[in-house]
Structure formats: C-alpha cells, structure tokens
C-alpha cells in the first residue's frame, strides 16, 4: 500500500483524502441523511475533479482511447451510478455514454449508445444539450406527462472539451408541483362538492328555527336528514383527503412486498358486517402459490375495500360477491365480481373519473362520494398495474386489478462498493 501511494504525484493528495472520505461516506450512507448529503457533496467534488481535468490522476487509461468513459475511474462511475438523482453523460454527437440508475428509472432501460433525441424527445432539453455542446450551460423545465406526471428542472453543461462530454442532470420537482396542484384541486373539489349538503343542512336549521319550531314529527325527520347529510360530508372529506395523499406519492414506486390474498382477505373481513346487512356473502377464492407483488399494504387494502364495498352496494340483495386471486403470465390479478344490475357499456370507460356517477340519485342514496373508483385508479397506477372493468347488463360486473409480480427475492440487493484501499 505504501508503495502504491508513493507512486502518486504530489498534487493528487487532496483527492486521495477526498476519495477515501467519499468512499467511506458511501459505505455508511445507508441509514442517515447526513452521510447521504456528505456523500453527495464529495461525489460532486470527485466528478468535477475527474471529469473536468483531462489528466488522469489515479487511473491511467489509454490516452488515445475513443471511449471517453475510460477516463472515469471505477469509483467515480460507482458514485455516478448511485447518485440519488438522474444523471446522464453525452458525447459530441449527443449519444448517451452513460446513464445512472435514476435516469434509467425515469427514461426507461436501454439508453446507452442512443441519441439523446430518441430517448428524450423534449425539444427544450434537446436545445439545452445542443447549447451545452457550444459551451453554454442552461437549465430548462422538463415535464414528463405520462404515465404519471413528473416535473424536473434539467441542467445541461459541458464538463470536458477533449474528449467532449456533456452532463445532463435532472432535479426532481414533482413533489413541489404536485403539492401546489393538489392544494388547488382539493379546494376546488371540496368547495364544489360540499356546497349541496351544506345548503341542505343550513336550510333545515332555518326551518327548524322558524316554521317547524314546535313540530315534533318534522323535527325528527329533519334531524334524520341532517345526520345523513353531515355523514356524507364527512365521507367526502375523508375520500378527498385520501385521494390527495395517494396522488402525492403516485410517482414513487411502492417499496414493500405483499401477498395479494392476505390483502384481499383483510379487506373482505372489514366489510363482512356491512355485507351481512344486505344478506350478501363475500367469498374469497385464491389459487395456490400466487407470487407476491411490490406494493403498499395499506393502499392495496384500501383499493380492495373500495372495490368490495362497491360490489356490496351495487350487488343483488342476498347475492354473492366473489373475489378471485390468481396469476397470469408474469402478473398477479384479483377480480371482484358481483351479481348486480351491471353497468351500461357507455359508462364503463368513464367510471374512474372523479365525481362521475352512472346514476347520481342512486349513488347518493347508497352513500357514494363519486371518488371510490378514482382512488382505486390512482392506487393501481402507482403500483404500475392495470384495472379492467367488464360488465354484462343484468348479470353483474367484474373489476379486475392486474399487478406485476415481484421479482424473486435476491439475497444481496446490490454489490457492495469496492473497498477504497484496493483501488490505491
């Protein structure tokens, strides 16, 4: 080790210290945010040092190599790969030299050696990359509208002239934009939807104070209606709040692993009493060895509670709600089937719109808020799944949720970073 250290040119010393600290920081970065930040700072310093200056310091690549990435020492490459923000390196022809794991998550896999214009079609970002090639740094907003809307600020700048390398960094602003948007949506929806029940309640209060003051019969009747209306407002607020919460995290992949069968059983158990009131039997039919899915337990339970609750609400009296759990090529599905009246084909494509109701009066009677399926849709979308709705008028409806099966558990999640001492 001493020998190899002696070989280093003197000006490389600060870097050795920086790199050791950086490596150590990466090793310990896991549990605490503080170390994460330290690692980030050091990573930035390291990238600057290694990429900006042509002179290879700790690594001696072929100076005449066609491959500019050869200039990146393994540790720097590792740091770039693990940097918790999307990073991409491009050459003079705007071909992708390197894209780290977060960039691949945003733009999809298979980016290497592709032209920027085919992987990232946004005209403003392409202009920024072209500008960076001429030595102008730029930052422009980037919105990826589908499948889940995401917002970024994209920074492009040239970091090396020979060989020519441009770096593109994306700063994720989705959370910020979302919270602004959700606040606006929440206020708009809440004020619009709460107006009707509120008007009803205040109307009855006025009547009870005035003309119906001493009418016992009317009083009982009015109080009953008022109770129903306030209950409706409460449900509406609960649903709006949970919709906002789910939308807020829609672009974040769920982390846990859950078995769909236990989720469905949990949701069904919670609704047993309600089903019994209408004489409806809830039956769960699960195939053997269905793989787990990557998902958020609470959200998935809510998803199936909403679907089963709907099936009970719109099912036939004394009928059966049947839930099937199974697998079909790489996907896990759970289908909730009722034997109610069914839904007209023209209404099906719009069921998941918020506040869309096939039959406004009936939905209100049944205590619907018009948000149940919108919530389902957003949870499915966060889990990268698919919702399929089939219905036969007069025979009943089936709501099927398809979710990608979780990959088989890998013992060690990722290779540990190479120890720094070996690199020296």
């Amino acid at each position, binding site marked *: 080790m001493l020998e190899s250290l002696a070989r280093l040119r003197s000006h490389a010393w600060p870097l050795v210290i920086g790199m050791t600290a950086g490596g150590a920081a990466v090793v310990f970065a896991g549990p605490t945010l503080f170390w994460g930040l330290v690692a980030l700072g050091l990573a930035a310093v390291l990238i600057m040092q290694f990429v900006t200056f042509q002179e290879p310091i700790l690594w001696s690549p072929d100076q005449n190599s066609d491959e500019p990435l050869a200039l990146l020492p393994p540790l720097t490459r590792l740091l770039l790969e693990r940097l918790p923000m999307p990073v991409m390196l491009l050459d003079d022809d705007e071909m992708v030299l390197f894209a780290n794991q977060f960039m691949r998550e945003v733009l999809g896999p298979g980016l290497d050696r592709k032209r920027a214009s085919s992987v990232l079609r946004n005209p*403003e970002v392409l202009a920024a990359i072209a500008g960076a090639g001429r030595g102008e740094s730029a930052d422009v907003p980037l919105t990826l*509208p589908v499948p889940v809307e995401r917002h970024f600020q994209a920074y492009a700048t040239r970091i090396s002239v020979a060989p020519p390398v441009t770096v593109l960094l994306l700063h994720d602003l989705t959370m910020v934009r979302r919270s602004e948007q959700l606040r606006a949506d929440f206020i708009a929806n809440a004020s619009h939807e709460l107006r009707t029940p509120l008007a009803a309640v205040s109307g009855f209060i006025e009547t009870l104070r005035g003309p119906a003051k001493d009418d016992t019969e009317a009083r009982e009747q009015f109080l009953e209606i008022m109770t129903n209306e306030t209950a409706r407002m409460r449900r509406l607020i609960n649903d709006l709040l949970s919709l906002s919460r789910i939308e807020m995290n829609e672009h974040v992949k769920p982390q846990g692993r859950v078995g769909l069968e236990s989720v469905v059983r949990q949701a069904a158990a919670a609704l047993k009493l309600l089903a019994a009131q209408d004489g409806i039997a809830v039956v769960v039919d699960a195939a053997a060895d269905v793989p787990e899915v990557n998902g958020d337990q609470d959200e998935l339970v809510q998803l199936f509670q909403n679907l089963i609750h709907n099936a009970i609400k719109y099912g036939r009296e004394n009928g059966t709600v049947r839930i099937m759990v199974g697998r079909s090529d790489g996907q896990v599905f759970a289908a909730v089937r009722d034997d109610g009246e069914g839904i007209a084909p023209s209404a099906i*494509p719009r069921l998941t719109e918020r506040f869309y109701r096939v039959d406004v009066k009936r939905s209100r009677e049944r205590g619907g808020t018009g948000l149940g399926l919108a919530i389902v849709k957003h949870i499915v979308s966060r889990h990268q799944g698919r919702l399929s709705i089939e219905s036969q008028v007069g025979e009943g409806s089936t709501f099927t949720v398809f979710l990608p099966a979780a990959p088989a558990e890998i013992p060690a999640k990722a290779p540990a970073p190479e120890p720094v001492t070996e690199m020296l």
Partner: protein
Amino acid sequence: MTEHTVKSFGEQLEALSALVAQMGGLAEAQFAAAIEAIARRDSTAAERAVGGDARIDEIQQEIEERALKLLALRQPMAVDLRETLAAIKTAAELERIGDLAKNIAKRAMVLNREPPIRLTQSLARMGKAAQNQLKQVLDAFSNRNAEEAEAVWNRDGEIDEIYNSLFRELLTYMMEDPRTIGLCTHLLFVAKNIERSGDHCTNIAEVVYHMVRAGHLANNRPKADTTSETAVPYETHA
C-alpha cells in the same frame, strides 16, 4: 460499395430517424400544451401550442427532402427502404397531430373565456390517454419495437369508447338546454380532435410494425374489436 459509403449511408438513415424522433418530441410538447390548456384553463399553454406548429412543418419538409435524396441517390432495399418510407409516413402523421393540437388549443382559448365546466376534466383525461398512446408509439419507433407498436394499436379502442361516452353526454346537455349548444360544440370538436390524434397514433403503430416486421397489422386485426367502425347512435338525436 466501399465501407465508407456503407457507413455514411447508415449514418444518413440514422440521422433521418433522429429527425423523426425530434419531430415527435415537438408534436408531443405541442399536444401536451394543448391538453394542459384545457385541463388547467391555461391560455398561455394554448398560445404555446398554437405557436409550436411552424417548427413541426419545417422539420416535416426537411424529413421529406432528406428521405427523397436517400431514395434517389442510394436506392435502399429491404429494411432500409422500409425505414425510409416509415420516416416519411410517420412525419406526415405527426404533422396532422400537430394540426389537431393547434385546433384543440384554439378552442381551449374560447372555452377559457366561459365559466368552468366539469366536462373539461373528462376531456383532459381523454387527452392524457391519447398522450400516452403518442409517447408509447414514438418509443416503439425509436426502439424499433413491433410488440410495443401492436400494443398501442390494440389500445386505441379505449379512447374511442371515452369519445362515444362524451358524445352522448354532450348531446343530452344540448337537448336539455339549447343555450349550451355553442359551448358544447367546442367541447365536441375538442373530443373529436383528441380521438383523431389517437387514430394517427395507431397509423404510426402500423408504420412501425411494417418497418420492423415487413407485415401489415391491419390484416391481422381481431374482428371482435370494431369500435372504430361503430356508428354513433343517431337516434338519440332524433
């Protein structure tokens, strides 16, 4: 042919493809701005969408010129020929999508002067579905992926169904209150334009499929899916 010529031919083809992707990006941005103008009542986004059209037309011309030059000078065969043709065809479809986006944006400006109506949210949602189709089909074009293209082609029915449902709803509004006819007509045309954009995406999907597989998607079309041929029930109107 020397190796140099072959290489530069490959490069020319690739540059053509990159130009189509770039045009796709512009069409995507324009369409996104038009939908944003509807969803958020944002007239600045609408102006952006209207202004974006010129650049798209410019690129389309450039693609045509380059493709013609390639055809005339290189006389490409097999997959090279199909790629060249695909570039011309896709550019034409993208240009139409750009026109439709411009029209949606113009109508959004009118709608934004009127009081807000909930139905615009349904339109925005339909627009998102079409946007998704456009993104997927452009990805399929870039990745030369026939399966992805086929998936886009199969999904178009969903947009048609939303269109049918919106059409009925708008008709009932107009019958209930003739004063809403002016506004509803704009909404109807926006819905129709979104539906047409979806159709252009399926056309691109067919082009991509042909480019990769040399076969035609339309010939294998499953007969059960007849959404695009289903007539809208005229009797509701009578």
